[in-house]
């Protein structure tokens, strides 16, 4: 009897201990760094026996990224291991799923010990969290030592906008440049040349000419994908005139929703949806859950808003199609010089500060950013490093889809680096402002409010939030 009671007590005590340990862990680690990894050390004494590997001793690095290994990373790792075999550095790649849970798994591992040396972050806000939580190494001194200036080499102002408090915690390795995706066969059939610069009016006119058929057989000129994101006309069209902070007046104290560039952009989209009917209406997009793949790749629209579906375009097994896809820059609200280009950096490569092989990890990061990541271009990831050989990027980018991707416009629109990127800097009350704007945009797209009224009301409501 007594033994049973004691056992019960012991069990309860263990449960308490486990509960508290479970709750305490996260905080302990983030404050005290890598104190709590004795278990890892014990289980692999060979690997963690010495803090610094002696020269000539093999160093094995571990990298975590969100891209499936077969989509490029495995080839990258193999190349590196071949090229750096004589220096005794090798690397292994492991994929984490880039969602909330996957990122939490990554962070738990980073906090718990030194198992991961290099990892990829995909958005700036997550990077900020990791930098402040001692999960990312300050790379500033390494960049200086190797004379690798981020602004000069990786997309100008945009690269340094990823700095946090003036320090660099990650190397942005990928650049995204977008443009209108075009069904070249339809353009050719209609005798329309692929535009290299065009205004919204010209764009609207072309979309109208490309719209044919009725009912289920209708082919639209354009698809705006508004059910996924209503803000494309801001970020893709108006930002070319207004720059990255397209929602705000330059001082950030007032919204910019009644600016002529915005009125023109939204007005064109609404008119194409509701008057010309040269693009599926917002309601149709929402209620039918239309997708870019479903519209563009099945030939139901001649143009679509964004080339981030490049992997689907190259995937003729799941999305069988034979037409040639080309690209054009986004149409501009007005014709003038000194316009901004839409673009963004990504695939932010960081080093775990608890890594035992930081120097080797830096060697890899530098190699990856400046030459190693080429195999990822096949999956549509364009290296951000300016000195990268453009022809080899284009070749990798279109490989396997040479007959359905137009190489010349791919290079011109998606790969060749531009100047004067639109870089967002202000984010004051942005989620609230976007909610206001989203509601008014919906009313405009559905036809409940006129463009002018909707935008004026959005401005009034959003400005009230900024006060």
């Amino acid at each position: 009897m007594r033994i049973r009671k004691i056992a019960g007590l012991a069990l309860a005590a263990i449960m308490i201990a486990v509960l508290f340990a479970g709750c305490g862990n996260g905080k302990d680690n983030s404050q005290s760094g890598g104190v709590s990894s004795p278990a890892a050390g014990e289980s692999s004494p060979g690997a963690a026996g010495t803090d610094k590997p002696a020269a000539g001793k093999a160093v094995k690095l571990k990298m975590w990224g969100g891209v499936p290994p077969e989509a490029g990373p495995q080839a990258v790792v193999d190349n590196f291991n071949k090229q750096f075999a004589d220096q005794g550095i090798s690397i292994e790649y492991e994929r984490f799923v880039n969602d909330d849970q996957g990122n939490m798994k990554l962070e738990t591992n980073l906090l718990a010990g030194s198992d991961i040396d290099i990892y990829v972050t995909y958005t700036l806000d997550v990077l900020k969290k990791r930098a402040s939580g001692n999960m990312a190494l300050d790379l500033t001194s390494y960049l200086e030592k190797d004379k690798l200036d981020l602004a000069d080499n990786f997309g100008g102002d945009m690269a340094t906008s990823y700095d946090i408090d003036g320090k660099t915690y990650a190397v942005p390795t990928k650049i995204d440049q977008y443009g209108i995706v075009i069904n070249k066969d339809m353009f050719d059939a209609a005798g329309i040349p692929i535009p290299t610069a065009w205004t919204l009016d010209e764009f609207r006119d072309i979309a109208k000419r490309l719209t044919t058929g009725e009912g289920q057989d209708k082919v639209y000129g354009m698809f705006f994908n508004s059910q996924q994101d209503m803000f494309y006309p801001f970020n893709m069209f108006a930002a070319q005139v207004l720059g990255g902070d397209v929602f705000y007046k330059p001082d950030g104290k007032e919204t910019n929703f009644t600016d002529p560039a915005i009125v023109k952009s939204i007005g064109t989209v609404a008119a194409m949806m509701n008057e010309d009917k040269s693009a599926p209406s917002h309601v149709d997009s929402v209620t039918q859950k239309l997708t870019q793949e479903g519209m563009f790749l099945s030939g139901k629209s001649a143009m679509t808003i964004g080339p981030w579906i490049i992997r689907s375009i190259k995937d003729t097994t799941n999305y069988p199609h034979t037409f040639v896809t080309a690209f054009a820059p986004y149409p501009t609200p007005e014709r003038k010089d000194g316009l901004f280009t839409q673009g963004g950096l990504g695939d932010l490569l960081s080093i775990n500060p608890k890594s035992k092989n930081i120097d080797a990890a830096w060697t890899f990061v530098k190699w990856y950013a400046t030459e190693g990541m080429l195999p990822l271009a096949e999956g549509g990831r364009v290296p951000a490093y300016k000195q990268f050989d453009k022809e080899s990027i284009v070749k990798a980018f279109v490989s396997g889809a040479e007959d359905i991707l137009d190489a010349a416009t791919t290079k011109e629109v998606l790969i060749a680096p531009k100047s004067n990127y639109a870089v967002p800097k202000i984010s004051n009350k942005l989620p609230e402002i976007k909610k206001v704007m989203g509601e008014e945009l919906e009313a405009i797209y559905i036809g409940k409010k006129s463009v002018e009224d909707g935008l004026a009301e959005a401005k009034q409501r959003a400005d009230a939030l900024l006060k």
Partner: protein
Amino acid sequence: MKISRQLRTDIAGYSFIAPNLLGFLVFTLFPVVFSIVVSFTDWDYTQGFGSMTFNWGHNFVEMWSDKWFVSSLVNTFYYSFTVVPATIFIALVLSVVVDKYVFGKTPIRLAMFMPYISNIVALSIVWVMMYSPFGPVTQLVKSFGVDDPPKWLGDYNWAMPAIIVMSIWAGIGYAVIIYTSSIQALPTEHYEAAEIDGATEVQKFIKITVPMLSPTTFFLVITTFITSFQVFGQIMIMTRGGPGTSTNVLVYYIYTTAFSFYRMGYAAAISWILFLILFAITIVQWQGQKKWVSYT
């Protein structure tokens, strides 16, 4: 020192409930208390605990001039005061009909119960298809001769009714099961007496079944009110509160303020208002039950 027998029994007892009690303390009581504290602060949780500043009752004052909050409150009342009566009325009629007149009761009850035990996300996705322009609901309405059927989830006035219909369908199985078990437990004497007096089926339903089921109805009114005030899954999947604010309900707005606007304090304050509303409604119902619930 010798431990007294009483103390030993106490220790044993507490150690048995300790795992459960601890779980309750850590995962329920602590969050509840903490959310009271948070509701009196401004707190962007992405900035850590350091960014927490007390603003006392400001959150509770601010919300009444917040149009989003007020509209979400109105929408929640609209939703609940439609879903609850409709669910209970339809469930009552269905259970009686199935119990009395239907051949093969078990498969039918099972079919009605299936949506209740299915994942709301899966159900919502299916209903998005049902309401799409090429979906069965739209086609059905068209076949009745309506040329231009509403866009359902894409329409300011129809989105909420569309979600209400779907929610009633999804939640009715539970009420039917509860009613059925009560109906089966009803004594037969009253019905026999009524038959001797020549009562019709409708009379028996209204004069005997409904009053005798009133304790069950009372229970269902309270529980379905509480769950319907917390509607979230359908809204999240089917409309995200849109179009405009037409389906923005309280819990969805709490979610928005906490996880899009990062305003934990404000979200906690709204949660407490939601609790107070539910509490008030439940109290009113407890008071009101004396008038219509009979336990004899």
